[in-house]
């Protein structure tokens, strides 16, 4: 039970690195973007983990309840922004992939490099 308090952070580290691995190793550009999305989501998990307070509830103040404690609102605000940044990056990346496919006829990195060498 003691160690479970860190479990979230371990999952954060593992998921982060699974995404990172996909970004650097996979050859397919869409796969890279999926990896990038996982990579960013892992960071969201880290921030949200910090905000939890034992026995607290979401930071929306209930009227008439005085002894309630609330979790930390700040990491939530930051992550709301970060999620938006994540989806924006993904959309832009996908638009590039579509253009690459049209220009090169492939979305595999090694094909593209090979085609650039030829020209």
């Amino acid at each position, binding site marked *: 039970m003691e160690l479970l308090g860190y479990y979230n952070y371990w999952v954060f580290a593992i998921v982060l690195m699974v995404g990172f691995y996909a970004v650097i190793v996979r050859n397919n550009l869409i796969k890279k973007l999926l990896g990038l999305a996982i990579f960013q989501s892992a960071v969201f998990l880290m921030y949200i983990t910090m905000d939890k307070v034992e026995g607290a*509830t*979401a930071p*929306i103040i*209930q009227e008439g309840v005085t002894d309630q404690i609330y979790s930390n609102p700040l990491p939530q605000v930051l992550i709301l922004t970060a999620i938006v940044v994540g989806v924006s990056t993904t959309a832009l990346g996908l638009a590039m992939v579509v253009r690459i496919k049209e220009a090169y006829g492939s979305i595999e990195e090694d094909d593209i490099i090979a085609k650039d060498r030829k020209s």
Partner: protein
Amino acid sequence: MSMYVIVSIAILVTMTLALARALKGPSVYDRVLAVNMFGTKTVLLLAVVAFFYGRPDFLDLALAYALINFVGILAVLEFFQSQRNDDEEQAKEQEE
């Protein structure tokens, strides 16, 4: 309290089963169904947890999930439809 716990465990088990189907496939339709089911279970889990935490007003969230899940699945269907159209057209061109 214990009722919520049992319900949550049941939902978690169903979620795991749905996930297993999504991972194993074998056909894409299995996976689409699995994703849809997973979405439904998430809705239920959120509803149960909202009651568990004593904040039933958070049912809003479950509602949002339910609505959006539907759109996601429709997008998948449309994706398959347009792909099939493409395939048919290619087949026609080849015949010609």
